[in-house]
């Protein structure tokens, strides 16, 4: 990665962090917030994996595992919002 590219990614990550923090301060809730948070996790995670860790042209298996991590978690965020009651029922003890 070129130096300029590293700086651009750093600034973008900070901007996305500021956006997330502002969202937190507004105290919003609901689907819009859930989808925004899922998107922020996926986007920021991908930026760190590709540009900080330099995985874009690195080992395919490792890259896929890391990509899966930042895809599975946003999907779980969405599923937990949509099916919270179902998750509670299937994980209830007794």
């Amino acid at each position, binding site marked *: 990665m070129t130096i300029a590219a590293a700086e651009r990614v750093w600034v973008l990550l900070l901007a996305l962090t500021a956006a*997330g*923090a502002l*969202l937190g301060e507004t105290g919003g809730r609901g689907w819009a917030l859930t989808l925004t948070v899922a998107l922020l996790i996926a986007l920021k995670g991908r930026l*760190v994996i590709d540009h900080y860790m330099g995985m874009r*042209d*690195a*080992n395919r*298996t*490792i890259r896929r595992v890391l990509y899966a991590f930042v895809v599975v978690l946003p999907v779980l965020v969405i599923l937990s919002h949509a099916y919270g009651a179902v998750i509670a029922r299937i994980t209830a003890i007794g």
Partner: protein
Amino acid sequence: MSQPLADGAITGGRVPGNAGIWVGIFCVLVEFLLLFTVYFVAKAHYPEAFLTGPDKLATVAGATITVLLLTSGYCMVKAVAAIRDDRRRATLVWILLALALGLGYPLVKFFEIRWNIAHGVDNAAGIFYGVYYYLTLNHLVHVSWGILGLGWVAVRTGIGAYSAAEHGGLEAAAVYWHTTDVIWLVIFPFFYVLR
């Protein structure tokens, strides 16, 4: 110190750092995936607690930790780029900057917990805060290993152990450090933003 694996040594492309660090990183990812499962299950059982929980936390503390980790990570990107050009003095400066910023994390966490306790946000304050302490302190432990790793590669860089041709240990410390970034980027919205 471990050697970087040559291209083609493992099928599928170059392994940044060394194979050993990736075993550790995958263990950490699995560990946090389990901890995040605990978060989702607790949230499903106590939706009200997770709806109001973030209101009592200091978002500025979480955001500051994010900025510190991302900026420290950026410094490690520069450190790896510098050693690839054999600029050893610049490498050391970038690692020391990354280390200084990384040390800001436990400092902010200390003040955050002190603020929490002063405002009645302790482990007994409810399920949301129990899960919050469990996950964030666990992350702090992993960041502590990363800080020790940065200290180690700073010393190794200082004594001239790394070069453009051999810097697998430095790259391994960098990818571990970035992994703690990736995990924090999930933790931050879970406790300070999402409701």
